[in-house]
């Protein structure tokens, strides 16, 4: 890609839960306006990595630098303000709102009126609300759900919920978008259109990180890939390099002998049995 400036740097980031090291000395560099894939078997620490970047959990060691600023221990809301926004493995919407309202919550930090302002300044409130709603409509249209703006969230299909979640994240106007398993539960047509959408967003300058199990999707879309296993990085590079990396083939895709089983878990994300 034309720009190769680094937007996000993770340096030796570690997170422990009790005795378990969920993420171990994770170091990643994400280039601006690129798509960076984060893959690995179940329990590799990918979602924890997203939690660390978005601030839902705090690192025990290491540094997270976003656009030149250290954000390692900042609160999640201040990272959203800085330009990091995420989605969840299973879409987390606000189930008793309309679709439009859900997306409008994404405008939270772009609105200025506080407690008193919302109650007492009539004209400013009206203008702000009108801006919020039209912006929310725009982002809904971006993900192709403009027609569903007024539907209650409860009426949406699973795929639509994913798209609404993306629209809500986009509404925060992030610089870096973290998508956690964005294709799981989508049919091939929906997956393809999400791929299209992501490409378009990157073309407009957005940086995207993906945690993904759909290998075809990842390989076809990503500029760079980081492979994790047991909380540590085992490989980094372009899709072409990753596919040929013997460590990845051994650890992730499994050795040829038991390849059948691992391959299945790789795609379907079967639950971790003890």
């Amino acid at each position, binding site marked *: 890609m034309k720009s190769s400036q680094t937007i996000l740097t993770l340096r030796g980031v570690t997170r422990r839960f*009790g005795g378990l090291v969920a993420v171990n000395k994770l170091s990643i560099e994400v280039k601006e306006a690129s798509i960076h894939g984060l893959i690995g078997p179940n329990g590799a620490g990918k979602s924890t990595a997203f939690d660390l970047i978005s601030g839902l959990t705090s690192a025990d060691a290491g540094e997270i630098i976003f656009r030149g600023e250290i954000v390692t221990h900042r609160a999640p809301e201040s990272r959203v303000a800085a330009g990091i926004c995420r989605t969840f493995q299973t879409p987390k919407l606000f*189930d008793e709102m309309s679709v439009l309202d859900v997306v409008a919550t994404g405008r939270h930090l772009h609105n200025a009126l506080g407690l008193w302002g919302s109650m007492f300044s009539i004209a400013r409130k009206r203008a702000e609300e009108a801006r919020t709603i039209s912006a929310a409509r725009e982002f809904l249209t971006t993900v192709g759900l403009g027609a569903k703006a007024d539907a209650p969230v409860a009426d949406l299909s699973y795929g639509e919920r994913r798209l609404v979640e993306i629209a809500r994240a986009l509404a925060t106007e992030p610089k870096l978008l973290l998508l956690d398993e964005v294709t799981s539960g989508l049919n091939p047509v929906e997956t393809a259109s999400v791929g299209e959408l992501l490409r378009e967003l990157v073309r407009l300058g957005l940086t995207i990180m993906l945690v993904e199990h759909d290998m075809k999707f990842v390989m076809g879309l990503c500029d760079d890939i980081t492979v994790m296993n047991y909380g540590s990085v085992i490989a980094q590079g372009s899709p072409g390099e990753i596919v040929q990396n013997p460590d990845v083939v051994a650890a992730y895709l499994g050795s040829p002998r038991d390849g059948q089983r691992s391959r299945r878990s790789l795609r379907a994300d079967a*639950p*971790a*049995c003890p």
Partner: protein
Amino acid sequence: MNFSLQLLSGLAVGCIYSLVAVGFSMVYRAMGLVNFAQGDLMMIGAFIGYSIIVNLPGLPFWLVVPLAAAITACLGYAVAQSALWPAMQRGASQTYLVLLTLGIGIILSNGARLVWGANPLVYPIPLTHETLRIWDYPVPAVYPFIALTMVALIAGLNVLFTRTWIGLSLRAAADDAQTASVMGVNHRLASAISFALAAGIGAAAGVLYAPITFVSADMGMIGIKAFAAAVLGSLGSIPGSVIGGFVIGIGETLGGQLVSSEYQDSLAFLLMIGILLIKPTGLMGRKG
């Protein structure tokens, strides 16, 4: 002499709190539900025990306890299946579920008042007023029953949870409902059984508490203190609930004398808030 007597009665009341708290914890683990009707199920159990004693005179007390527990467990099963499960399946919020159990509690306590009357009832059996002498200490005759039931129930629960398929599937369902359903466990059944068991244990506590005091429709308020016990011992942890019950039972008995009896009611909650401020997940909490 007086001190050990008070300690003993603190332990006895602590046992009652523990049993109700164990019920709170079981339901919380199995269903992720804070059951505010737990105390009222205890009260219903005590009333059912009264009706058993009146209608089957001569039935030994050690049979009244399991019988009342079984009947209340059936009631609990019905409540879980008819009212709670549909709401949980709809993915209702915690707020909604808590309000639902509060509503069930109101129905139980006021229903009991309509059925058994507003006046307090006393078990018409000698046990209520008998005192034993153990090593020269006067001990109310019901205390050995409380101690035995406590030990039996805790041992029974331990066996049930670790040795039988029911317990294993309950634990699986409690720890991870999704995995459990993949493994073929019927989460609905597991939830309802947990709720019924908790109701039964609560009822046993009610029947055992009745001879110490009396049975009345507002007895369920004890359940709220038991809830404080469960919380300070870490909600969801069975050993934590037992310890929490003892902390509150003994704390109230001794604290009432040390602090001031005017504030005895607040003591359970102040203890709970204090412990949570020091250790936010309770005494037996895993994460620090």
